[in-house]
C-alpha cells in the first residue's frame, strides 16, 4: 500500500512540474515577455529597468528556474490592476469559491443518490422514468443559461431571493463563511443550485446505472434468499457497491466544480476566484491569470490524488491487490 501511495505522490509531482512548464511556456515564452510582466502603461526607461530586473535577458531555462523558485516562495507576480501579490489576491477569494463548490456537491450527493437508487430499482415506473428524463435534462441544461433563468424567475419575477452577490459572512475557524447566516444562505441558494444541477444529474445517473447492474447480480438474490428486507438490501448491499464508483466520480468532479464555478460566479457576481479570472482575462492581468491557473491545477492534482487513495481504501479488492 505504501508503495502505491509513494508512486501516486511522485506522479502528482511530475504532473505539477509539467503543468508549470506549460504555464511558463504560455506566459513567458509566447509573445513578448515584457508585455506580460510589466505594466503596459510603463514608459521606456521603466521598461528597460524592469527588463534587467526581471532577468528577461537571461536564457529561457534560467528564467524558468527563477520562475519555479519564486513560485515555491509563493511569489507569482503582482497584479497589474490591483498592484498586490497575485497569489494573495486569488487566495483571498478561495474560501468563497470553495463554499459555493462544497454546497453544490452536497446538494448533488444528498439528493442524487436516493433519487438514483429509486430510479434504478424501478426503472420502468412513472417515477423512475421521470427521474431518468430529469437527469438527462439536468446535464443537458447549459449552466449559464439556467443561472440566468433562475435569476429571472426567483429574483426578478418572484422576488424571493437576491439576484447577485454573496451574503453576510461570519468568521469560523479563521475563515469567512456565509453558510451560517440566514442572509448568507439566501444568497447561496441560487448559485449553489445552479452549479449543482449538472453534478446532480451525474450522480443520479451513476446511482441508477449502478443500482440496475447490481440488482441483477447473484449476491442480491442470495441476500433476498436469506430473508433480508428491501431496506437492508438497498441500504447496505447495493449502496456499498455503487458508492465506490460514485465516490470516485464525485471526487474528481469536485475539481471540475471548482473550475466550473467560473461561470456561476460570473452570472451571480459571486466574489470568488472564478469571477476574478474572467475579469483578469478581460483586462489581460497576466500575473493573476497565472496565479489562478497554477493554484487551480494544484488543487485538481491534490484532489485526484486524494480520490485515488480513497478508492483504494474503500474497495478491499484494490487494497489487498496492491499489498501483494
Amino acid at each position: 500500500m505504501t508503495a502505491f501511495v509513494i508512486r501516486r505522490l511522485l506522479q502528482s509531482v511530475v504532473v505539477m512540474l509539467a503543468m508549470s512548464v506549460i504555464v511558463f511556456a504560455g506566459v513567458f515564452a509566447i509573445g513578448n515577455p515584457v508585455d506580460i510582466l510589466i505594466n503596459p502603461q510603463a514608459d521606456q526607461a521603466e521598461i528597460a529597468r524592469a527588463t534587467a530586473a526581471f532577468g528577461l535577458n537571461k536564457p529561457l531555462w534560467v528564467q524558468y528556474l527563477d520562475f519555479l523558485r519564486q513560485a515555491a516562495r509563493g511569489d507569482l507576480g503582482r497584479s497589474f490592476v490591483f498592484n498586490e501579490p497575485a497569489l494573495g489576491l486569488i487566495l483571498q477569494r478561495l474560501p468563497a469559491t470553495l463554499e459555493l463548490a462544497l454546497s453544490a456537491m452536497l446538494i448533488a450527493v444528498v439528493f442524487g443518490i436516493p433519487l438514483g437508487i429509486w430510479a434504478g430499482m424501478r426503472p420502468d415506473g412513472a417515477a423512475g422514468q421521470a427521474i431518468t428524463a430529469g437527469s438527462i435534462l439536468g446535464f443537458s441544461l447549459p449552466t449559464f443559461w439556467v443561472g440566468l433563468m433562475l435569476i429571472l424567475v426567483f429574483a426578478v419575477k418572484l422576488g424571493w431571493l437576491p439576484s447577485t452577490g454573496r451574503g453576510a459572512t461570519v468568521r469560523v475557524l479563521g475563515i469567512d463563511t456565509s453558510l451560517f447566516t440566514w442572509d448568507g444562505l439566501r444568497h447561496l441558494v441560487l448559485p449553489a443550485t445552479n452549479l449543482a444541477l449538472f453534478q446532480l444529474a451525474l450522480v443520479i445517473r451513476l446511482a441508477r446505472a449502478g443500482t440496475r447492474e447490481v440488482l441483477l447480480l447473484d449476491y442480491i438474490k442470495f441476500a433476498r434468499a436469506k430473508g433480508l428486507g428491501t431496506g437492508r438490501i438497498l441500504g447496505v448491499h447495493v449502496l456499498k457497491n455503487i458508492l465506490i464508483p460514485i465516490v470516485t466520480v464525485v471526487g474528481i468532479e469536485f475539481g471540475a466544480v471548482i473550475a466550473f464555478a467560473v461561470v456561476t460566479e460570473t452570472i451571480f457576481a459571486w466574489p470568488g476566484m472564478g469571477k476574478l479570472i474572467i475579469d483578469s482575462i478581460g483586462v489581460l492581468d497576466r500575473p493573476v491569470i497565472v496565479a489562478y491557473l497554477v493554484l487551480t491545477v494544484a488543487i485538481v492534482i491534490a484532489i485526484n490524488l486524494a480520490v485515488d487513495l480513497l478508492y483504494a481504501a474503500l474497495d478491499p479488492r484494490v487494497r489487498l491487490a496492491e499489498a501483494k
Partner: protein
Amino acid sequence: MSLAAAPVDRRAETPWRRLLAEFAGSRLAVLGLALFVIILSLALLAPLVAPQDPYDLAKLDLLDSRLPPGSHAADGMLYALGTDDQGRDLFSAILYGLRTSLWVGAGSAVVALAIGAAVGMVAAYAGGRLDAFLMRIVDIQLSFPAILVALILLALLGRGVGKILLALVTVQWAYYARTVRGTALVERQREYVEAARCLALPTHRIVFRHLLPNCLPPLIVVVTVQVAHAIALEATLSFLGIGLPVTQPSLGLLVANGYQYMLSGDYWISFFPGFALLLLIVSINLAGDRLRDVLNPRLRR
C-alpha cells in the same frame, strides 16, 4: 393435455434490427432523434429559412432593437422571437447560431476522434511501455476538468476560431484514445480474430469486417456524449467572452448579450437562444443515452 404450443412466428432478427427495435422502445429517445434531425435540417438550411441574414450589418435597423416576440419590422417581416439590442431578428440569429454550434461541435469531434483513435490504436498494438506511457498521459489529461483545460489554452493563447477549435479538440481527444484502445485490446484477443487469422483472411478484411463493427458501439456512445459536451463548452466559453469572436454567431454570445436586459424584463434576448441550445443538447443526449443503454452488454441477461 393439449398439444405443445404452436411455434411462434418470428422474422429473422439481425443485430441491426434488434438494435433499432430496442432503441425505438423508448419514446423519449425517438423524440430526441426526431428533434435532432429537425434542428440539424433547420441549421443546414439556415440561409434559406432565416427571414434575415443577422450578420449583414446593412440590414439591421437599430430602431427595431429590443422588440418583443411577435413584433413586426417596418417592411412587415415578422420578428417571431423578437429582436436583440442591435435590432437583429432573434430567430435568424438563432438559426445561424445553431449552425455554428453544430459545425464547431462536430468538427472538433471529428478531429479529436482522428487523433484519439490514432493514439489509441498505437497504444493497443504497441503494448508495453509505449502503451503505459500514452495511457498515463491520457489519464492525466482526463483528470483535468474540461473547462480548466480550455481556460488554460484560451487564457494563454487568446481568442480566435482556431484557438477555440484547438481547445475543444484538446478537451476531447483523450476520451477517444482511451475508448479506442480499450476496445482494440479486447477485440484483438477475441477468438474470432484468431479464427479469421487461422482462415488466412487478409488483415484489412479482419479489421474492417470484423474488428471495426465490434469497436463501434462504445465509440458511438462516446461520440454522442462528446459532441453534446463540446457544443455546451463552446457556448459557455463564448458566453464568458473568451470563446468565439463577435463576428461568429454563437448561441453563447447571444445569451451573453441579453444578460444586461434581463433585469429590466426583456427576457427573450437571453431566453430563446439558450432554449434553442438546450433543445439541441437534449436531443443529442436523449438519443445517445438510449443508445448507450441498448449497447451496454452488462444489462443484457
